[in-house]
């Protein structure tokens, strides 16, 4: 993966699979992808994991654990969630077994790649105090074993691109950079969106268009394989690939475009930056605040949220202290602490901060919205607050004195 490639501004026009009703046009659009794709029979999927292992990667992939699909260490294709599917709705996530041999017939687990690159809790540096009171500071050493992740969805790739820009453009975060450097991505074009998904509306999916080394489409009997980088072609050469048939390609394309069409949720299509900052006193902020528990689940599962808090953890003997950072949330009380008072004392301030940042001021910072349409914040909200509904309610002028702001 080279950073200059993934750091391109992400608001550039990208082909949006499934949003085009003209099939001829859509087929033309996809021709470039289809020429490159080959076919890997299902029983040969293990060769992908073997090749990644041989090339020295720590390989992560989807595994069922604790009732959820999570990216965990995985060396055997048999560990994949074969036959599992997910049902998601506001405040609800359940796995169930279906009569299917497919391993990727689900939408999203609770976490994207974020915890593997931007660690939920880690030491930044350590200080040691000598008997004379002198201090010595040592930066935390970072493990540099390259990772490969199999099964990354387009929404999560878009989020990764945003986290790359946040932690690597300008001042580079050393821990993030070290983990990111060797990352090998096997994307998966999504054919199974959940009820909470809206990546077609944000323009980030369901097709993975860039930022991957390999991309797969899952069919009943195997996988179509596309390459997206020189490293990806190197791995592909080790796989027992066969030419893909036109029928297989058409099937894969149809599944991707159907995945876009099945999505029922969407964000309002207007300029949300202007709309939200023009409605800072909209009465709906109070309505959503009355339901919001300010628990921070939404920010914890959001693949683009980057806030983190730093704190010192001294060891009991007093001779050293670890300077840690851990994920923080704009819903927490301490997030807006400023010498003895809170900038955002009430839940309405905090929800408004989250939404105006995610959908509004991200445009100032990154040239695009901070939402990639993965829908995790909807599923994992304990009271089922739905970002698409809240944004729609606030951007409507109901209840606004004098109409539009």
């Amino acid at each position: 993966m080279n950073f200059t490639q993934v750091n391109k501004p992400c608001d550039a026009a990208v082909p949006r699979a499934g949003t085009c009703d003209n099939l001829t046009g859509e087929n033309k659009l996809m021709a470039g992808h289809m020429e490159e794709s080959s076919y890997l029979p299902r029983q040969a999927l293990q060769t992908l994991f073997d090749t990644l292992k041989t090339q020295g990667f720590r390989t992560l992939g989807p595994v069922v654990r604790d009732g959820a699909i999570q990216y965990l260490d995985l060396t055997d294709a048999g560990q994949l969630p074969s036959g599992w599917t997910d049902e998601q709705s506001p405040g609800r996530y359940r796995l169930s077994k279906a009569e299917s041999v497919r391993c990727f017939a689900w939408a999203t687990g609770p976490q994207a790649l974020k915890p593997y690159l931007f660690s939920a809790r880690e030491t930044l540096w350590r200080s040691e105090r000598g008997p004379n009171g002198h201090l010595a500071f040592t930066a935390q050493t970072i493990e540099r074993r390259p990772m490969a992740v199999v099964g990354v969805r387009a929404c999560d790739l878009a989020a990764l691109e945003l986290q790359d820009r946040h932690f690597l453009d300008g001042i580079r975060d050393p821990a993030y950079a070290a983990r990111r450097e060797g990352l090998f991505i096997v994307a998966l074009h999504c054919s199974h969106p959940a009820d909470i998904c809206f990546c077609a509306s944000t323009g980030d999916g369901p097709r993975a268009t860039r930022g991957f080394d390999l991309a797969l489409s899952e069919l009943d009997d195997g996988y179509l394989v596309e390459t997206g980088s020189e490293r990806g072609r190197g791995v592909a050469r080790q796989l027992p690939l066969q030419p893909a048939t036109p029928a297989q390609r058409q099937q894969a394309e149809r599944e991707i475009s159907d995945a876009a069409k099945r999505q029922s949720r969407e964000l309002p299509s207007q300029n949300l930056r202007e709309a939200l900052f023009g409605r800072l006193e909209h009465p709906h902020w109070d309505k959503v605040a009355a339901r919001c528990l300010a628990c921070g689940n939404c920010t914890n599962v959001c693949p683009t949220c980057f806030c983190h808090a730093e704190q010192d953890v001294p060891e009991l003997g007093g001779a050293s202290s670890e300077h840690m950072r851990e994920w923080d949330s704009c819903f927490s009380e301490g997030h807006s602490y400023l010498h003895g008072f809170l900038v955002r004392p009430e839940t309405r301030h905090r929800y408004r901060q989250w939404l105006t940042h995610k959908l509004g001021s991200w445009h100032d910072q990154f040239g695009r919205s901070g939402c990639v349409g993965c829908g995790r914040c909807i599923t994992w909200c304990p009271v089922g607050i739905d970002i698409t509904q809240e944004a729609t309610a606030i951007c409507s002028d109901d209840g606004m004195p004098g109409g539009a702001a």
Partner: protein
Amino acid sequence: MNPYLPREAEIAGRTQESPNTFTLELRLTDRQPYDFEPGQFNMLYLYGSGEVPISIVAGNRDNGVLTHTIRALGHVTNGLAALKVGDRIGLRGPYGRGWPMQEALGRDVVVVTGGLGCAPSVSIIHHILTHRERYGHLSILQGVKHTDDLIWRSQYEVWAQMADVKVLLAADVAEPGWHGHVGMVTALFDRLQLEPDRSIAMICGPEMMMHAAADGLHNRGIGADSIYLSMERNMQCAVGHCGHCQVGGQFVCRDGPVFPWPQVRPLLGIRGF
């Protein structure tokens, strides 16, 4: 280079400025050169406790001493208050975008501060007095809640005696014998002989005070683009990563702390931002 790693600094001097405000003179023990612009800040680290962003009051290139004036409010600043000369702390910086000293060349400068807002702003005064011929008239307006909160009194008296410098002080609550204005610092604007077209304003203090001061100076003819504010927010990383200091799309630590007024004006004074 790890952008989060502090350097060791020794406390070379300590002054108690008021019951809860103190000044530390710090010297980096690695003796490596350190340069900063007026208005920038450092992260000061108290061993075993944490870091706080503190503006740089002054830096002496000859002896390597960096001066920071701090109010003891939270656990880190209260801990720093208890340190003595010779104690060691961590320091990293300088961070942020400072005062527009380039834009101010050849112009009259109006410095308006409230409370401890004088600390991030005193570097403006030092810079102008060091390069006196490069700048026009200097007005220094400082407001405090209570006259007890006023630090650097003798310094204001020295500045007030200088040619082409005007010093005006205000206190909401005044002790007996107070010669300054009783009331808001913004009421002092009427006593300025402003030439708005050649003036640039630099403001630092509580947000509502900055809001009122910027409005007041703009109403007296200073262009919005010639008014600058130094903002304050929770800062933990100082490099635009941790997210706490955001005001709308601005990261105060990286894009500020000094902003042209129009850049922060839409959200200034709105509760919750």
